[in-house]
């Protein structure tokens, strides 16, 4: 009977009873239910959070790769601005399937061919230095033989021009992993000693590579059976496994040389970077100035509207602007004759103003009719 009465009661009367129960007797059960539902929502959200974390990790990996690519392209951009002419930009496509017999990258495919002037033996360079040379050129693609290839040779010298030699890929017995990309500078006369850390560049002898392309730095001397010459181990300036974009030098550029391009690479790229940062700063400053001006204009208009409304409420007539920019602009924009007409209107009654004899009438002459 009591429960039937409770069913029949209106909500306004039953709700206080329910609330009192929730606050007192049922309070522990309410907290238990809340905890359970919180656990359930946490359980349901954990999957989504895991997905989000995975997505963030993936985005982080991609961002790292983009940063690397961005820095490489920026360096290449600097090299292009220094070279100015005589080169073909292209992408280096690495083979997706590794060749079991080859642990090192020895050739890459270049996305430019004979259609744009690439020929066999054209030098391939990157922003860091020498990459290799073209071994075969198709109309749209080419195959480049890298310096790690067993057949690669290049005439080299120290950056100061004191010592000369021939660069070979490092001996096959030691070609494992990162060490496989080392080079050997052979045939250096015994009287010339090269200190570790010395920069090696192409000498231009032989006519394949232009003079001055960076090859690498000397690591140490090597012990060989040769008596009259020395051999040095050289760490290349370019890592082929990370290379994505290259320049192929044209024949004319290879003949005429590249000058001191790679020696000044660091400074020039820094200058480019500074210019980019400065441009970004100036854009940010300009945007901030515009935003501040817009904010000032909004505040002015708000203040003016408030003052006008206050004046209207108080019954004070709104004063005409006396020295505002708008008035000055309006006065300046009027022509002098129109101002004169506005200040001296023709009198009513049809009487023309008195004018001295001999002067032309004030009204403009009638426009001649066009037949």
């Amino acid at each position: 009977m009591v429960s039937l009465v409770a069913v029949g009661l209106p909500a306004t009367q039953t709700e206080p009873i329910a609330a009192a129960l929730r606050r007192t007797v049922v309070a522990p059960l309410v907290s238990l239910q809340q905890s359970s539902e919180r656990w359930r929502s946490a359980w349901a959200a954990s999957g989504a959070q895991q997905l989000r974390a995975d997505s963030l990790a993936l985005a982080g990996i991609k961002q790292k790769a983009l940063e690397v690519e961005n820095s490489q392209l920026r360096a290449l951009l600097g090299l292009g601005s220094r070279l100015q002419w005589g080169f073909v930009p292209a992408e280096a496509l690495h083979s997706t399937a590794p060749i079991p017999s080859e642990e090192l990258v020895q050739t890459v495919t270049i996305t430019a061919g004979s259609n744009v002037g690439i020929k066999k033996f054209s030098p391939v360079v990157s922003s860091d230095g020498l990459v290799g040379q073209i071994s075969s050129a198709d109309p749209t693609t080419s195959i480049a033989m890298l310096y790690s290839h067993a057949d690669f040779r290049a005439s080299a010298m120290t950056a100061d021009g004191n010592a000369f030699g021939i660069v070979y890929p490092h001996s096959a017995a030691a070609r494992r992993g990162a060490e496989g990309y080392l080079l050997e500078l052979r045939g250096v006369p015994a009287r010339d000693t090269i200190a570790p850390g010395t920069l090696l560049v192409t000498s231009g002898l032989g006519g394949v590579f232009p003079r001055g392309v960076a090859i690498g730095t000397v690591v140490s001397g090597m012990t060989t059976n040769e008596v009259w010459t020395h051999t040095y181990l050289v760490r290349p300036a370019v890592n082929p496994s990370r290379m994505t974009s290259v320049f192929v030098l044209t024949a004319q550029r290879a003949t005429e040389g590249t000058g001191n391009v790679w020696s000044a690479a660091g400074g020039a790229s820094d200058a480019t970077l500074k210019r980019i940062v400065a441009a970004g700063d100036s854009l940010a400053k300009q945007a901030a100035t515009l935003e501040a001006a817009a904010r000032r204009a909004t505040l002015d208009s708000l203040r003016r509207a408030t003052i006008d409304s206050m004046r209207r409420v108080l019954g004070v007539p709104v004063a005409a602007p006396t020295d505002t920019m708008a008035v000055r602009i309006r006065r300046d924009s009027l022509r002098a004759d129109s101002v004169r007409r506005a200040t001296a209107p023709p009198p009513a009654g049809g009487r023309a103003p008195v004018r001295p004899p001999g002067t032309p009438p004030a009204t403009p002459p009638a426009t001649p009719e066009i037949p």
Partner: protein
Amino acid sequence: MNWTSTVRTIIVCLILVVFHYTLRPLLAWRASVDFLIVALLLGSVRLRPGYAAVYGFFLGLVADSLGATGFGVAAFGMSLVGFAASWLKAVFFADNLALNGFFLFLGKWVFDLIFLIVGRGLHGAELAMQIFVWSPLSAAVTAVAGVLALSILRPLMEVRTQ
């Protein structure tokens, strides 16, 4: 029923009530387990019909206070179910798990019937769907959960024979 068995029954019913407000939201099944009905039937078969109705009324008030609408409907339904369970205990209740499961199924389904007809104001196809699909499903799940609970809590339970 001596005081020891009374205390045991109270403990088991409290455990079932706690299950109702912890396990049920955690599982969040569409056809959910009603541990309150299990607690009601387990308690009612050990009480006289009048006391069982009062017990059902208070359990229903707890359910009503946490429900969104229809205050008093669960109290009414549980009073009726508790009274009927206590009255019919001699017929149905025995130390047989299958029979106990059927008893739980029937109690839950009758309670849902009362709850839906008195409290919800459903009509037509929707009411039929609730009565003949979802309520039996929920009653079946409740019966299974009740039988499991009885099996687990058997050491604590003592069946009234008189």
